[in-house]
Structures are given as C-alpha cells and as structure tokens.
C-alpha cells in the first residue's frame, strides 16, 4: 500500500507549515473568521451554563405552579432574573478560567519557590481573612436571621444583630487560620486524617454539650452553617491553586491529587470560632422567655440592651413584635399604641427612623400584618386598602433598578478586588514577577466582576423571589397556610351565612363558604374581620393542606422530596464545585471526571437538605442530625485512601454556594415561619455532611473495584498461567 509522502526538508516554507512558523508576531484574522471563532465559543459557554441551571429553575416553577397550585407573582421579573443568572454565570466561569485560576496558579507555583514558610503562612492568613470579608455568604445568613426573635433565642439574636461584625471577624479568623494550617500541613506532609479526627471529634463533643444549654443550643445551627457557607466561588480556585503549588514543592513522594484539604479546614475551623465567640458572649444574653415577658417593663433594660438602644427597640417592636408583645411594650394599653401609630404616621422624621427610606413601608406593613383597626386608621376605608393591595400585588415587592445595580456592582468589585489585590501585591513586590499573558488575565478579572454583578442581580430579582415564594407556600402541602397577598374585602356580607361546626373536644368553630370560580371553599369565620358598619368582611384566603387525608405525612414527604431535588439541582449549578471538579480532573489526569464528582456531591447535598428540612418540620435538635453522620464519617475516613479523603471533604466544603444558599435559606425561613420553629438554621450544615458521605462511599466502591481488578490480573501470572 502506498502513501503519498511529502515535505522533505528541501521544500519551501509553506509546505512545512505544520512545524515551522512564519516568524511573524501576529496572524491577521479577518472579522468574518473572528466571528466564526467567537460565536461557537460564546454559544458553547452559554449552553453549558444553561445546562447546569435548567434543572433547578424548571423544577421550582413546576413545583409551585403544578404541584402546589399557586400562581407565581411577578413571573416576568423572575424570568428576567433567571436570564441574568445564566449570563452572569457564563461570564463568571469564563473569567474564572481565564483570569482568576491562572493568577492563583502563578502565585501558587512561584511563592513556594521563592519564599519561606513564614511568608507563605502570612499570606495564607491574610487571604483567608479577606476571603470571608469579600464573599457575601455571612451577610446572607444574617438576612435569614431576621426571623429570629430576641426572646426565644437571645444569644443567637445577639450574634446576628448587635455582635454581627464580631461574628464576621470570628469566621474570618477561622478561615485565615485554616488556610495557614493547610499550608503547614503541606510543608510537613501531614495527612489530613488526624486533623479531621481531632476537629470533628471536638466539634461534635461541643455540639452535644451545647444542646443541653437553653441558649447555646440555638446557636448550633448558625455555627455549623457559618462553616458551611465560607469558601465561595472566588476563594475556592485561589485557595486550591495556592495549595496545589505549595504541596507540589514540598510533598515528597505523593503523586496525583495533592493540594486539597484546605477547604475542609476552612469549613471546620469557623465553626470552632463561632463556638468560642458564643462562649464569650454567653453572660450577656438572658435566658429565653416568652414574648410578653420580654417586653414587660421589668425586663426593659435587658430588652433594650439586646436590641441596641431605645430607638432601635421601638423600631423592633413596631415592625416585628406580635400583638401581645406590642401591647406589653406599650404598657398594656391599646390606646397608647394607636396613638403612637398616629404620631408616627404624622411625623415624617420619626417615620423615617423606623421604616427607613421606604415610604410605602408602613402602609404595606399595616396592610399585611396590622389589625383591622390599624388598617382602617391608615387607609380610611376598605376600598383604599383594596386598591393598595392590588397595586402592591401586581408590582410584587418594588425595587429600584439603580439601587439594585449599584449594590450588586459594589459587591462584585469588592469580592474580586479584596482577593486579587493581595495576589498582585505578592506577585509584584515579593516575587517580582511579571504577569504572563496580562491581556487574558485582565479580561478574565473583568469578566469575573461583570459576571458576579449580573449574577447577583439575577439571584436577587429572580431566584430569591422564586425561592421565597415557594418556601412560604411549601408548608401548604401538609398544613393550612394563609395567603396575605391575595386578601380581599367582600362586600354585602351577611352574618347569617355563617355556620357552626364542632370539634371532638366540644369546641365550636364557625365557617362559611366562599365561591371562587366554580369551587366553593370553606373558610374559617373570624368575627373581628367583619365590619358591621360597612357590611364588609375582610377575607384572607388560605391554602392546603394538599394531602390532608394521611395525617400530613404524604404532604411532608412531598416537601422532603422537593428539598432533595432542589438540593441536587442547585448543586449542579454551583460555580465553585465546577472549579473544584475541573481541578480534580486535571490533577488526576482524567481518572476522576468532573461530572462524576459533581453527581456524587449533588446527590449528597440533596439528601442533606431533605434531612435539614425534616429537622425544621419535626424540630429535631441539631445535635441528632449532625453528630451521628459525622461519627460515621470518621469511620469512613479511616477506611478511605488519603486522596479520596482530601477530595471528598473538600468537595463538600465548596458546596452551598451562591445558588444553593439563598434557595435553602428562603425555603428554611418559609417553613420555619409557618411551622413556628425558633430558627431555620441547620439545613446548610446537614447539606454539608451528606456529600462527604456520598463521595467517600463512592470512593470506597471505586477503590474496591480497582483493587479486585488488580488482584485478578496478578493472579493470572506472567506467562498467562494461573499461579497455584
């Protein structure tokens, strides 16, 4: 068979194009060719992000509309938000690959080559601390903490409000020490396992101890959640790159995937830091008490200390306290309270201090939460109330576009700048290296900032709202909930329509029928809602329970299943996990594919979130939910190889990022408000334990398979004969 050979050395240059360049510095690419390269490139990137996020979005929409049967309010705004999320993610991931990861790798390779351990540790501390300040995860937890009442969990309330900055510093210190500790570990080639045994053992012991104290048991959820949310999508690639660089320089003969394990430490040490902080603050917090007691005059000093001063206390009472609390605050007099509301309504400066710049805030709050008298007072009559409600329902929660853009842009710039500026400082002043391919790196950083900003806006406008709506409506699957945004005022109400029913303990309940479309719905009758003067009944529809026949278990099962799929879907979209998976795939030369790792982690997160939701619904103490899995994990860690231990613990640490956290918290908030639990923390902590289990179990299975294949080969013997 003949093949045509060509290109002997004597041939002209053009014929040897494959191996010789024409020595010019630039190839001129026409616009058409450039577009031909750019368009498929952009398309493939966008499609990748769409693929990772479509599951969670479609699932949420499907669940709310079809399963729960509640229409989505503000659907167009939410849709725009989701589009922004996709675009933002695309830009951010590309910026990560182009700018952030190469920058991190450069420092990771050069720093250990040129500097000693002390410089590396100092840099690690600074990086870890700044990483916590840069990424907004702690703030998100604080938003979630708004539902915590100071009388039910005083220490938790303190940590989330008055001492919130200290909480952030404590977590920052924890992360900084963790990164530094990780570097020390690489330097001396310690295994990760002893660190895990000591840390996890200690934290579990403290958890058990804390569950016995009335104040401490409520901060457990917050503490573990703080550990879970650290290390976001900007920190992870940098910390990984630094770890890989350092471990390559110092690790003696280990091969393959070294450099992992820092994220694990950065998820465990902040928990310890929060525990230490709460021990310090323990004396400041009173014991939990009832709401009425809290607002009584004899506890006034304590209340004001917790709430941060007299003005803030008043603000808190007006906005957040329930009717008895408000009554108690105003010395038990209803008239005092009404007079106070009147004064605030008339005095603009006072209104501003309480409700901030949001002028409609007081109106809206009264419309949704106030008693009938208050509503009549503010709005004058029912028609005005109705029009106001219609208007606010249609615009969902109003937002100002400019404000939204501004604070997301600032957050994005802050996140990237706080982390890359130390890198540049180290690069230029300590290492004195110039940037390779600076155009790519700066383009990458710009894309990161743009991507994070758009992503933030999209999350706020789209995903968060969707999550909050579903979260608050979710309990309708197993209990009856009210829908305040759909309230109406029914004219010509005749009290004769009301019927009476009797329950098994002899108590009488009144109800009447409301016709909606073709259905007649039974509604409980509340005499306070009926105004005889105008003949109007103030009606708030309720929903559910969807599955009332089976004592609510089917409904609860539905909620748990929802939580599982939501956790699974949201994890697949997480950018930090993507970055980690890519790094693992590169370092193991493709043996552990990114998709495989992500699937294992996603299943684990789904299971964990289900567990966390179960914790809220049945009010299981957090200790029961965390300590047994962690103890099981210690056993699995002992059996697994070092490589898998590093990768498994790390991949769990990077989950719960900007997509999962808001959704989970919204859901937790919604459920806990409806179910009436003290706080909705702890889901994230549960969601961080289970992925480690799933990855380690998968790792054990893969190792066993490989070992048995190896043994099978060895048994066959060199000449192909079985050795007996």
């Amino acid at each position: 068979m003949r093949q045509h050979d060509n290109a002997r050395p004597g041939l002209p240059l053009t014929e040897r194009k494959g191996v010789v360049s024409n020595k010019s510095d630039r190839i001129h690419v026409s616009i058409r060719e450039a577009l031909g390269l750019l368009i498929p490139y952009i398309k493939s990137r966008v499609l990748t992000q769409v693929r990772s996020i479509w599951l969670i979005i479609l699932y949420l929409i499907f669940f709310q509309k079809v399963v729960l049967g509640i229409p989505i309010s503000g659907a167009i705004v939410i849709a725009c938000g989701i589009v922004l999320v996709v675009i933002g993610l695309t830009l951010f991931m590309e910026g990560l690959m182009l700018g952030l990861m190469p920058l991190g790798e450069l420092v990771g390779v050069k720093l250990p080559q040129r500097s000693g351990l002390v410089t590396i540790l100092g840099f690690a501390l600074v990086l870890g601390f700044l990483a916590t300040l840069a990424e907004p995860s702690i703030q998100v937890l604080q938003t979630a903490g708004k539902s915590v009442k100071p009388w039910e969990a005083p220490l938790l309330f303190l940590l989330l409000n008055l001492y919130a900055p200290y909480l952030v510093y404590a977590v920052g210190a924890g992360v900084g020490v963790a990164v530094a500790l990780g570097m020390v570990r690489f330097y001396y080639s310690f295994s990760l396992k002893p660190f895990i045994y000591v840390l996890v053992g200690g934290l579990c012991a403290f958890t058990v101890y804390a569950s016995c104290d009335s104040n401490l048991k409520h901060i457990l959820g917050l503490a573990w959640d703080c550990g879970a949310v650290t290390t976001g999508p900007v920190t992870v690639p940098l910390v990984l790159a630094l770890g890989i660089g350092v471990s390559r320089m110092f690790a003696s003969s280990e091969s393959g995937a070294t450099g992992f394990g820092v994220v694990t430490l950065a998820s465990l040490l902040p928990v310890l830091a929060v525990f230490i902080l709460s021990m310090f603050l323990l004396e400041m917090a009173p014991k939990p008490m009832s709401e009425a007691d809290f607002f009584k005059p004899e506890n006034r000093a304590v209340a004001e200390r917790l709430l941060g001063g007299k003005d803030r206390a008043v603000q808190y009472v007006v906005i957040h306290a329930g009717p008895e609390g408000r009554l108690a605050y105003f010395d038990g007099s209803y008239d005092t309270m009404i007079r106070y509301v009147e004064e605030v309504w008339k005095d603009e400066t006072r209104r501003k201090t309480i409700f901030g710049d949001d002028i409609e805030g007081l109106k809206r709050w009264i419309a949704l939460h106030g008693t009938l008298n208050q509503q009549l007072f503010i709005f004058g009559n029912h028609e005005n109330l109705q029009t106001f409600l219609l208007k606010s329902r249609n615009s969902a929660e109003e937002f100002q576009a400019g404000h939204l853009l501004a604070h997301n842009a600032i957050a994005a710039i802050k996140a990237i700048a706080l982390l890359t500026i130390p890198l540049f400082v180290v690069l230029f002043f300590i290492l004195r290296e110039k940037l390779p391919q600076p155009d790519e790196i700066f383009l990458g950083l710009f894309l990161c900032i743009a991507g994070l900003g758009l992503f933030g806006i999209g999350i706020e406008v789209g995903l968060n709202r969707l999550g909050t709506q579903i979260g608050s409506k979710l309990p309708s699957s197993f209990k009856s909930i009210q829908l305040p945004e759909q309230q109406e005022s029914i004219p010509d109400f005749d009290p004769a329509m009301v019927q009476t029913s009797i329950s098994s303990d002899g108590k009488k309940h009144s109800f009447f029928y409301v016709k909606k479309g073709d259905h007649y719905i039974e509604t409980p009758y509340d005499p306070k809602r009926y105004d005889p003067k105008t003949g109007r009944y103030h009606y708030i529809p309720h929903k559910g329970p969807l599955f009332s026949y089976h004592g609510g278990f089917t409904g609860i099962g539905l909620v748990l299943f929802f939580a599982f799929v939501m956790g699974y879907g949201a994890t697949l979209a997480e950018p930090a996990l993507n970055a980690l998976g890519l790094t693992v795939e590169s370092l193991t030369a493709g043996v552990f594919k990114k998709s495989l790792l992500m699937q294992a982690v996603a299943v684990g997160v789904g299971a964990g979130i289900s567990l966390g939701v179960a914790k809220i619904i049945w009010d299981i103490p957090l200790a029961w939910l965390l300590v047994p899995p962690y103890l099981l994990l210690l056993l699995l860690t002992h059996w697994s190889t070092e490589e898998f231990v590093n990768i498994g613990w790390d991949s769990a640490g990077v989950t719960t990022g900007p997509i999962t956290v808001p959704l989970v918290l919204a859901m937790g908030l919604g459920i806990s408000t409806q179910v009436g639990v003290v706080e909705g923390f702890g889901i994230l902590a549960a969601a961080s334990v289970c992925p480690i289990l799933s990855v380690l179990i998968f790792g054990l299975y893969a190792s066993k398979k490989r070992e048995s294949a190896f043994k099978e080969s060895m048994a066959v013997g060199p000449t192909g004969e079985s050795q007996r």
Partner: protein
Amino acid sequence: MMETRKASRISAFLPRSISKEVLNALSDVGVHDIFVAAARSLVIKAKKGISLLLPGRDLMLDPLDQVVFLVGDEMAHPLFNLVVEKGHLAIPGMGSVISEEIEIPSKDVLFNEKSITPFDANPIPVHPYEVKGICCIVQRGRGEGVARIALDTGTCVPAINFGTGTGVRDKMGLLRITIPAEKEIIHVFTSVDEVHGILAMMAEAGDLEQPGKGFIYSYPVKKALVNMRVVRGGQQHVASIEQVVAAIDHIKGGAEWRRRERGLQKQAGSQKKFLLGLIEINLLCDGGTGADLVKAAMAAGAGGSTIQSFRHVHPSDSPLGEISPVREHCSLIIPEDQVDTIVAALKEAGAFTDRCHGQIHLRRVPRALTYMGK
C-alpha cells in the same frame, strides 16, 4: 547540527499502586533523576448481564504514573529489566515500558552514569518484533475518541496525559481564548508493520488534518514490553486472545503474519501527506518557566510546542537538589536544520541558567502528520 552523544531514555507507564515500588528500586540502584507525571489508561470493560442494557461507556479508566529517566546506553538494558521485574510488567494488564535512543548535546551532563551500581538483570519476555511508538496530541476532551482506536484494533492499552499546547493560537491576540490550549497526549505502541496503519486511523479519528485539531507522530523504540490486555473482564476461552497472538508471534518470529481488514486500512491510509525527518527537542525546565522559553523558541521559528508538568524525584542528598521538584517538559518538533537556531534561541532566553535549570535531549521523529496549510 551540533555535536551530540547518544544515550537512552526509559519511559514506563505503571499503575499508581506499584509505581512507588519501582521508584524505590530505581533509587536504590542509583538512578538520581526521575520524572513522574500523572496519566490514565483506558481498557474496555466487557459488559456482562444487566449492564448490557444500561447505556454508558464500556471503558474503564485507571490512574497511572508515567515514569521517565535518562541513562547511559550500557545501563539501559539492566535498568529496563529491573523496571519490568519490579513493576510486574510481564503480567498482561499491568503496564508498559519502552527504551529509546536519544541524543544529548555533548557538553551537557544530564545524568550521572557513575552513580549506578552495575547489576545483572533477570531475563524477561520480549516481543519478537520491532516496536514503534505513536504520540498523538489532541484537544482536551477528544483524547478518548482517538485512543479508542488502539483498543478497538487490539493494538495496546493506550496511556493519556494532560498538557498545554502553544502554536498558532498564540499569535492571534485576545482571540486566542476561543481556542482552548489544554491538550491530551496519547501514547500508543505497536509493531513496525502496523504503525503506518494505526497512525493513519488515529489521524482519521481525530480529524487531525483540519487546522488546530492536533498533531501525531511516530518514533522508533529500541526495546519495549507493551501492555496488550485491551479487554478486562470475562474471558470466554481457555486462553485470552492476547496470549494466542503472542504465542503465534513467537512461533512465526514476528508480526508480519498479522492481517487486518483490508478495507479499514485502505480507507485510512490513502492520500495522507506526512512530514518526514523531523527532530523533537525535549526541554526540561523548572515549573513556570516553560511558557517563556517556548515563546522564545517560537519567535526563532518553531511552529509550536506541548508542555507537560512533571514531578522531579531525586534523593535528598543529590547534587541536583536545587532543581525544583516541579518541572515542565516542553516538546518542540522541528525540521533537523532548525535545531541549532532553536537551541541557541533557548539559550539566549535563559534556559540554561539557574532560573530555569534547563536540560535538553533530542529524539528523532521520522513521520508526523498535522494540518499543513492551504
């Protein structure tokens, strides 16, 4: 071309679980400078029972270590045998090892020949035919598609590493971000009779004649023991097909008796233009410096390069201790008459200074294929 002297290069692809033993054995005998990189191998997993119904790949991936070191010609044979013995490479399915001839610029000392204590090596089985190596570089993500050729034709168990490539894309300004630089490097070994056919089939599978798709070349191998166990799992006869083929090879004294389907080879091998008579410059330098050095080489006329990351394993008291444990291996394939210019350019860029601790050795590339321009 500059003055060179001959030496040997031994490359072994070993399963991760036994590579440590082999590395220890080599250090004990006195090999000072060993380079290790992560790789993976593919084998076909015979589907049994219910998994036949399930969709999904039938490939199994295993982590390997690619172990490379240079020795003088006299010690090549015993060291080769040592690797085979300690790595159990005579057992089918374990791994592969090859020994090739390379050239080093005369003045350089890249390895310490005196450090190796001579020893006698135990005899090992060999292939009764000449073995050739094929190296193929493709975009990341396409490696398995091309490496499968080796599995599907029963040639050998391929090994794949990751690397980064430089070339045309670096001249395109920012637009280069649309062409990914990450590459997969596929290593395949076959007999001299089949190498053209397999090369052509792999080039076809990877569409390598299109611009930017990759590069493939073959190189001579002095001695080899190749892993031929391409299928793992149920064996339905008293002997595996590899044992039968090996037995017939021995009887026939070679591999010319082997025949493939005419159709396949004819399709693949026709009308391909090959590049002949090239030289590969292998530059080992400290981690992080490869990109700059390669840039200088490209400015001097090299078409492109592939950079791979290696770990440098050496005893703690070795005189090569200042060399960073993280090394980069840059492979530049150029026509023979360009070698001197490129090496001079590298020297000017500082490859042989203490910043980079560069080491060069040369390998002959008789046949290569890539996009050749309009």
